[in-house]
């Protein structure tokens, strides 16, 4: 019994760690897509941010400077996407794919040119990373049954970016549903003409939305490179941007359901890590490859229709042209 409990707590703890970049990226995508801009370049922005943060941390040794560099890099890419989609009314998907391809190649090229380690950045020392924060009393609580492990493993002992991600969700909800900016954001994704005739600039509103998207992706990339890991590895985002996009669609473009979807993907991932090498009664040891594929198989199954009809913002992907 005790074992199962500890296993559960440790799995949830891992879930949280794995879900953090998904949550940040899903909220980023939510801002962009609610404004009507399709963003499949979450992946590329996170990867660019991961590289920028790892490179900055390697050179300066400061995780905070690394975070700033990552956010600026990601913001730049977001504005580039905005420039293509908003100002020049380009196809959102094409622009997003272009950014993903660009970043995928550029990070490796720059990595080799600057650090000469085959596209990786140097392994970071502990003080150049975001490290776990021990909450007061975590050690003392260790002995307490149930509450102890819960507090020590699950609540305490994460780095600051995990807590930031968890705060970003209610903040997103509040901005989207309770603020003037949120009202306009939702309106511009549904009917930009209504926003335009109300005397609000559609372009400026959408630029602000993609900028927020960029900043959040910057945090997500930083987390992957210098909090979850200790440096940049080529293609290290490994599709998490797409998973975050899927989670946001599962959540029907709403913050809290999107959070739920991110945690679900995180849980699948965490279980797959923990199940490796474990033999299950009647089946024997499950091949590692199958377990690693589990989250992706589940994604396909869920995307294929278990989640019900997701209605996107009506004007999503449609360039706004003042027709009259």
């Amino acid at each position, binding site marked *: 019994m005790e074992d199962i409990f500890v296993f559960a707590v440790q799995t949830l703890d891992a879930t949280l760690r794995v879900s953090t970049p998904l949550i940040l990226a899903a909220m980023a995508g939510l801002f962009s897509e609610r404004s009507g801009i399709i963003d499949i370049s979450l992946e590329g922005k996170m990867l660019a941010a991961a590289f920028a943060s790892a490179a900055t941390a390697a050179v300066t040794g400061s995780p905070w400077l690394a975070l700033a560099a990552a956010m600026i890099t990601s913001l730049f890419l977001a504005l580039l996407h905005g420039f293509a989609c908003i100002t020049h009314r380009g196809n959102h998907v094409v622009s997003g794919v272009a950014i993903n391809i660009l970043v995928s190649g550029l990070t490796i090229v720059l990595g080799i040119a600057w650090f000469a380690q085959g596209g990786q950045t140097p392994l970071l020392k502990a003080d150049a990373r975001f490290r776990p924060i021990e909450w007061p009393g975590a050690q003392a609580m260790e002995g307490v049954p149930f509450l102890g492990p819960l507090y020590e493993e699950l609540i305490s002992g994460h780095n600051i970016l995990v807590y930031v991600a968890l705060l970003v969700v209610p903040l997103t909800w509040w901005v989207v549903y309770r603020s003037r*900016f949120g*009202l306009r954001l939702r309106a511009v994704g549904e009917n930009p003409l*209504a926003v*335009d005739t109300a005397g*609000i600039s559609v372009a400026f509103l959408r630029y602000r939305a993609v900028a927020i998207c960029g900043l959040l992706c910057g945090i997500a990339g930083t987390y992957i490179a210098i909090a979850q890991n200790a440096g940049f590895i080529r293609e290290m985002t490994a599709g998490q941007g797409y998973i975050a996009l899927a989670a946001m669609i599962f959540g029907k473009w709403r913050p809290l359901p999107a959070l739920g979807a991110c945690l679900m993907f995180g849980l699948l991932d965490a279980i797959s890590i923990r199940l490796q090498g474990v033999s299950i009664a009647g089946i024997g040891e499950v091949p590692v490859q199958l377990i690693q594929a589990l989250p992706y198989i589940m994604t396909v199954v869920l995307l294929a229709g278990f989640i019900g009809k997701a209605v996107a913002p009506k004007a999503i992907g449609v360039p706004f042209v003042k027709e009259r």
Partner: protein
Amino acid sequence: MPAEQSTTTGNPAGGAIPPPPAIRLKHISKSFGAVRANRDVSLEVAKGSIHGIVGENGAGKSTLMSILYGFYEADSGEIEIAGRPARIRNSQEAIGLGIGMVHQHFMLVDTFTVLENVILGAESGALLAPSKDQAARELARLENEYNLYVAPEALVGDLLVGERQRVEILKALYRGAEILILDEPTGVLTPQETDQLFRILRALRDQGVTVILITHKLREIMDVTDAVSVMRGGQMVAHRKTADTDKEELAELMVGRKVRLELDKEPASPGPTRLLAENVTVTDADGVPRLDNVSLTVHAGEIVGIAGVSGNGQSELLEVLSGIAKPSQGRLVLSGREVTAQAPVHPDEARKLGIAHVPEDRHRLGLVTSFSARESAILGYQGAARFNRGPILDGTAITQNCSSLMEQFDVRPPDPWLRSGGFSGGNQQKLILAREMSPHPEVLLVGQPTRGVDIGAIEFIHRQLVARRDAGCAVLLVSVELDEILALSDRILVMFEGRIVGELTGAEADERRIGLMMANAMDSSEHATAGSTMTEQAP
């Protein structure tokens, strides 16, 4: 220049110093490339009056109002609002000057509540809650003052069209509009909703609001306006007090020549039944009946009009009769061929049976805008022997066919090689009518034949339809324009929510009786609340 004979209407109070006009436009010109949309247009609108602006499509009405609402800036000319010179560079500045606009296509967010739509862009601060409270209070006040009610928490997507329009008016008033521009506001309304809109406009005028009404319906101009200005070819051709003019004069001013509004036609002499529908039901993918147990007949030599607000099953009726959709239940007899769910008819077969179809939406179903006119002129008949030489289309025959259709139906410009999308709406429609009428069909299904068509072309199209009837063709006419239904039909069926809710002969029909049939049907339907407020106030 005729535009100079400006009128100063309104000011019934007769004060010592007349107040400056709410709007004064002086010598406004605006070009788009080579097209001169507005040429030296001047206009004065008295404060607290309802001012109509009429003109054909492309006469420059919309451009002029867009300049006033800040969508465009004029190339030259001056604007004065309440006596003060104004420069209006965007909608925000127009709103700031107290100008509100109700667009033809509503500028509403369907997933928002009424309240959220009203405050969008006019929020009182960065947080929504105080804005909503303030707007709720203001809406209650407007409701009292103008009898203008819409449930504040209702989702706009669930509202009836008339209610959505009221939301648009509320939006403008909430922003402090003292000048309200309405662009073709009645196109989507039932006669009762139109009456209610006009009552609201009169109440607004009596409170000092200036209303500008853009329309092509002369009857509405006569009903509700105090003064009227007529535009033609980008110029202002006349200003009149409504009391001093009549429909005939306005129509002549709009078109630039005499127009006969009344249609002379002999009484119909119906022959044998050409089209029969018995208990036909069409259900959509969600299982909702779009056409509900409809029975009707159309005889040779008569025009049967289907009246009703758009979206009440007329489109589905045309689709099932032309073979585009198949009936879920019931049976049809088209020129002797029996059609049921088990034995549906293909559109091509229907065409061979002598059923011609002029679709409601000419851009979606009537022609391909990127095709040349000669190609659009054979759509549906491209397999006919006269257009083919073996497996290859006969280009010469196709071009000749188009030229001859263009000549018969006065399509301008008569250029078979011009892109279909390059013709005006009226000429596109004439091309489609020519294509569908030229094989001399036994049954002609016509949907919205004059939607977006100029008054001169309307006259021509109407005469063609009557000529076809007199030649023994059975004509089924679907139109949301009651005037058109009344002018052409020998028998009238009224549709509501997929059902036929009334039948009248052409002689006994008038607008009021048709309107009441629609309203009664509405009353007994699920929209009971909205319908009842409407009928209570009906005269």
